[in-house]
């Protein structure tokens, strides 16, 4: 590797980028627009009133109170479900994404908790829900929030109302907090893959790669300068995205050393995949189509926009085979859940993938014109 050569190539790439105003505009503003559009949609959900089906199996005054409290919160429009009906069947038949079930012994447990001061007493509220519905997670989050408030109001003792169906991860943050790391991972992936594929296919078609192959620059120098260039662009766009997210949506994300690490792994992985695609695809137009064919499944199946829990089981399994999934999860583990152990394991997995793809990418880069 020759740093002088890598540096010179990087400067040429950056100058070309700076002088191509439309590319510069879209590289920095497209992810910001995504954040603003989706962020506003998800923030709007906070103001929306959700339909909520409630099946009260206890049918007592106390159990009626809990339903009343949910209605009074202003976030739910209640529909009562006959206790004699099977809730799952009801949800299926009526296309309902969530039925909240108040258990039969609700009042009894409540009395035990309040009057007899029994800290072991509790009730289990059941959510019968449709995981493929896009709004159900928000609805569950709101319910959890309502129950948490209810528990706080009762006493400082152990919580009386409990729910067991919800993953603890989806409890404590707003959707926008979950959304931003996914968008960062996706924007870096898109820029790296398209950047790598478009630039290299164009340079190859124009014969610039052929000219470069008659100079001392090596394949490794060239690929590294590409990666450095994409990394700098990723830093610029991530900074822009985070600034907008903080300013407009008041996100609460943890920024630490994991962020640049996951970004560089993101860049390595997708510049590498781009290099492989450039080898396979001959024309610039088909290169863009091939890049899209990779980007779209990643975008929608890796949990960039929606939690994986919402997908059918077989798609969840498939998502775990996609590199973007590990970048998404790693960024969320570090930025949202502050879980260093999880971030470490995700970074190890994507690190191995990045290294493999990078090596194959270098090998696949055509420096000589055929054999």
């Amino acid at each position, binding site marked *: 590797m020759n740093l*002088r*050569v890598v*540096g*010179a*190539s990087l*400067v*040429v790439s950056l*100058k*070309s980028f700076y*002088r*191509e105003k439309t590319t510069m505009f879209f590289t920095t503003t497209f992810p910001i627009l995504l954040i603003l559009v989706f962020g506003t949609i998800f923030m709007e959900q906070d103001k929306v009133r959700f339909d909520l089906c409630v099946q009260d199996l206890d049918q007592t005054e106390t159990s009626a109170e809990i339903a009343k409290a949910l209605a009074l919160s202003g976030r739910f429009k209640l529909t009562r479900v006959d206790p004699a009906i099977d809730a799952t069947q009801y949800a299926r038949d009526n296309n309902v994404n969530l039925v909240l079930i108040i258990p039969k012994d609700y009042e009894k447990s409540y009395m035990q908790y309040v009057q007899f001061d029994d800290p072991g007493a509790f009730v289990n509220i059941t959510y019968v829900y449709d995981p493929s519905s896009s709004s159900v997670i928000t609805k569950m989050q709101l319910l959890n929030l309502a129950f948490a408030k209810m528990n706080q109001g009762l006493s400082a003792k152990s919580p009386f109302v409990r729910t067991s169906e919800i993953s603890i991860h989806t409890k404590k943050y707003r959707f926008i907090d979950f959304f931003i790391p996914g968008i960062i991972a996706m924007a870096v992936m898109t820029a790296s893959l398209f950047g790598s594929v478009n630039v290299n296919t164009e340079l190859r078609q*124009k*014969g*610039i790669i*052929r*000219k*470069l*192959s*008659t*100079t*001392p*620059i090596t394949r490794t120098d060239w690929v590294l300068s590409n990666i450095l260039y994409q990394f700098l662009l990723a830093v610029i766009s991530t900074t822009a995205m985070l600034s907008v997210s903080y300013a407009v949506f008041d996100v609460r994300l943890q920024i630490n050393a994991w962020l640049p690490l996951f970004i560089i792994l993101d860049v390595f992985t997708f510049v590498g995949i781009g290099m492989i695609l450039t080898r396979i695809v001959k024309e610039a137009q088909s290169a863009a189509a091939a890049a899209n064919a990779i980007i779209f499944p990643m975008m929608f199946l890796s949990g960039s926009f929606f939690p994986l829990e919402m997908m059918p089981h077989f798609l969840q399994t498939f998502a775990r085979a996609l590199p973007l999934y590990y970048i998404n999860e790693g960024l969320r583990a570090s930025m949202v859940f502050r879980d260093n152990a999880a971030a470490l394991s995700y970074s190890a997995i994507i690190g191995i993938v990045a290294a493999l793809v990078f090596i194959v990418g270098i090998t696949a880069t055509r420096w*000589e*014109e*055929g*054999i």
Partner: protein
Amino acid sequence: MTTEVEYVIEVENLTKRYGSLMAVDDISFKVRQGEVFAFLGPNGAGKTTTVEIVETIRRPTSGKVRLLGMDVTKKKRDIVPRIGVLPQGFSSFDRITVRETMQYYSRLFGCRNADIDGLIELVNLKDKAKERYMKLSGGLRQRLGIAIALVNDPEVVFLDEPTTGLDPRARRQVWEVLLGLKKKGKTVFLTTHYMEEAELLADTVAIISKGKIIAMDSLVQLIESNADYLLLTVTLQSVDEKAFEVVGKMGFKPVLNNHRNINVRVERAEDIRKILNAMKEAGVPLLSMDVRKPNLEQIFLKLTGEALHEDTSGGRGAE
């Protein structure tokens, strides 16, 4: 460290095959230090494939190719810093200026003392130094490509079709630059399908057709050894079909050109006298006459039976 070799390029039994297509078919040639060697042939003859193998861009199917005394398939890293290449259809980074492009390539070669201004001046691009590549015309782009090929002060310069696609004025401007290189004593390997280009610049010409070298010699020698006929051009005072008939009846094959010119290919000098006498007797009014040896393009046509190029903007066209 320069290895002193008489021949800077040595090609022996070079073959390049793409599937069933034989692009280069068992060719051998040598290029001396300091000479301008022209590889002349029509499109698809195998010129670029050959030159790209010599430049280390492509790999041969079989045969030996040595450049500056080194095997091109094994010593790419040692060869590349010592050669300069203008590839066919040269292109560069659209948004980078002439001067920046030169600086970039000089950095790739690690040339700290490259005379970038001198090279820009050599190719007459001084007033375009701050112009971006995308704004340059075809001729200016080719001249930049030549300047880049010289940025590392190479021992051998490869120019693959340096004037293809240029208008006659731009082509002449590029030729001026190439004549400057020739004066400097650079070894130049030139591929072209323009006969004039080879005639103007080359010391040695190799004619390639369908992957094979069919003739190779110095330009003078090549014409001398193949010029076994003369071209008589008779210009008439006015259009006269009779003259055409007279020559045809004598057993020659006249070609009418511009209505008033009759071109006749003759084997012996005395045939010229016979034709002129016959015309005089028939009362054909003659304005002037010209007798020439065939040029390179006519030699090429004779040897291969095919024209050098479809468009005749650069050459005189096959007769």
